[in-house]
């Protein structure tokens, strides 16, 4: 880090040009990343009719809370929010436990079926039945049209399991052996010895599962389209957005100006409401997903 200072005298001109290029690249990158998000927030706080004129950038022109009032008055949004929070919490807990337990089993060096069980799960990453057979299976099992379709089928994922396995394999075997000499069974070893040491990787995987659950919409559309009581937040947002998206392919949104509050501001408010929890949360969990991705990605 300090070597730059040492060689400052002989620093080539090309390096100065390079610094400028780095700076410009990152500036453009940050603007492109942030602008659309900030613009959405600005739109969500702008008066609907005023927004039709366009040219709202980083700040609302005519401030209004009406959009949020409209969004929060929608019954479906609240149902969706309840279901989404419910599935996120339940699936994160159950899936984390199941994946951790499986990872624990396949990472025991002395376990007799260690490699076979690993292979059994690795195969599932590459071969799957596809949309239709899976759909029919869920229907035959009575999972479609229920809340359970959100957390039972995806409970174990080979990828998450492998991330945890890699981490657990790094824990010295001697810990397990000494516990066994004290008469501890495997469940005790899992619960009291391995799990406390695995907190970082548990946090990583929990984050992966939670984000996946929070952002899911396709399962709600495919399996619970008719069951409005099991709708999710993202699916409700999709319904709001898609009505407008379909129009851009045809008559363009000329008619929208007539409405008291144009869809774009309401859509923005709904978008902000659904993304807010995760956007507030992820910066604090950064070190977990960075380490988790690094061990899981490179080693496997």
């Amino acid at each position: 880090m300090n070597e730059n200072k040492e060689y400052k005298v002989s620093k080539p001109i090309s390096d100065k040009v390079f610094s400028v290029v780095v700076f410009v690249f990152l500036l453009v990158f940050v603007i492109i990343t942030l602008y659309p998000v900030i613009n959405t927030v600005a739109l969500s706080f702008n008066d609907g009719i005023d927004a039709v004129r366009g040219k709202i950038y980083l700040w609302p022109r005519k401030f209004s809370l009406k959009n949020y009032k409209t969004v929060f008055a929608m019954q479906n949004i609240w149902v969706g929010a309840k279901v989404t929070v419910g599935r996120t919490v339940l699936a994160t807990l159950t899936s984390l436990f199941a994946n951790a337990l499986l990872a624990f089993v396949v990472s025991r060096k002395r376990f007799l079926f260690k490699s076979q069980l690993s292979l059994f799960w690795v195969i599932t990453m590459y071969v799957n039945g596809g949309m239709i057979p899976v759909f029919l299976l869920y229907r035959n099992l009575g999972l479609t049209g229920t809340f359970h379709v959100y957390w039972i089928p995806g409970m174990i994922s080979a990828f998450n399991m492998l991330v945890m396995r890699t981490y657990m394999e790094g824990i010295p075997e001697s810990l397990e052996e000494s516990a066994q000499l004290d008469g501890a069974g495997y469940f005790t070893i899992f619960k009291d010895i391995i799990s406390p040491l695995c907190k970082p990787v548990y946090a990583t995987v929990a984050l992966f599962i939670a984000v996946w659950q929070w952002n899911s919409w396709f399962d709600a559309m495919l399996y619970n389209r008719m069951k409005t009581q099991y709708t999710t937040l993202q699916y409700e947002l999709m319904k709001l957005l898609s009505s407008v998206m379909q129009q851009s392919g045809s008559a363009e949104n000329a008619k929208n100006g007539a409405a008291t509050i144009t869809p774009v501001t309401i859509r923005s408010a709904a978008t902000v409401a659904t993304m807010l929890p995760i956007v507030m949360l992820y910066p604090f969990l950064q070190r977990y997903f960075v380490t988790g991705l690094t061990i899981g990605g490179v080693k496997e």
Partner: protein
Amino acid sequence: MAQNKKKEKMDRREMWKEIKRQKFLMIVSFFMVAYGIVFYYWPLTGWLMAFQNYKPKKGLLGSKFVGLDKFRFLFEDAVFIKVIRNTFAMGLINLVTTTIMAVLFAIILNEVRRAWLKKPIQTISYLPHFLSWIVVTGILHDSLSATGIINDILLRFGIIKQAINFFAFPKYFWPIVAFANCWKETGWNAIIYLAAITAIDPSLYEAAAIDGADRLQKIKYITLPGIKPTFLILLLMNVGNVLNAGFEVQYLLGNGLVQSVSQTIDIYVLKWGISQNDYSLGTAAGLFKSAVSILLIVMANALAKRYSEQRLF
């Protein structure tokens, strides 16, 4: 001889003791395998539907087998041929552009020495990954709309005279999808490359500096070769996913006017299999996708085995 037998007996007794000791592991394994069979392996029997005229009432065993009829229908359908082209083209474009962006971003961010600058940029770069595709396509749609920022800029600089409706022309669709993928995943995908760069021996850079190398030369001769193994492994892993990367964005951004370039295999499956209830045709299309994916993985693996030590299995 006698001693050997005794030893064998001991071994067997030890073995039994070990099995007993591993009882918990065995029980867990049993449930895990049962779960895996039901949710991952059982659906594979559904592939039979691709060779049948499947009727839900008659079931998998009662439905009539029609051989390769469904596949024949697929490959005689001009739409499906286009769908295959779209899936491959967008999958490849996305793989190439997202990889280039991730490597570029990782290398450039690594050149920033000041932590107070680097950290916030990195945090910002992850943000889009945490947004759902619904949100991302919604935001993108607004940015590209008649009153959106892109048309605004183009008009202001006089590049165009009238706002362009980007979603009405097939020529814009693939670039938009590629951009959406880059926007969402560049920062996230760069995490692994940044980790790989950090793992490079710092003495290499010091030696290069003494030899008078400038920063660009250091990148070319040290950083790039240093991340090559990571690059190859990720490429290998992603090649098998090329055909899987074509659903959400295309489904959410596609519309009637760009159908010919936006439809992918997964959308085709959804349309025929779920909406039209032609389970057999949907399964056949899905099976085709799976088969090609597996072929791609095997091929990529063989290639990698031949040209370097990097391999998936």
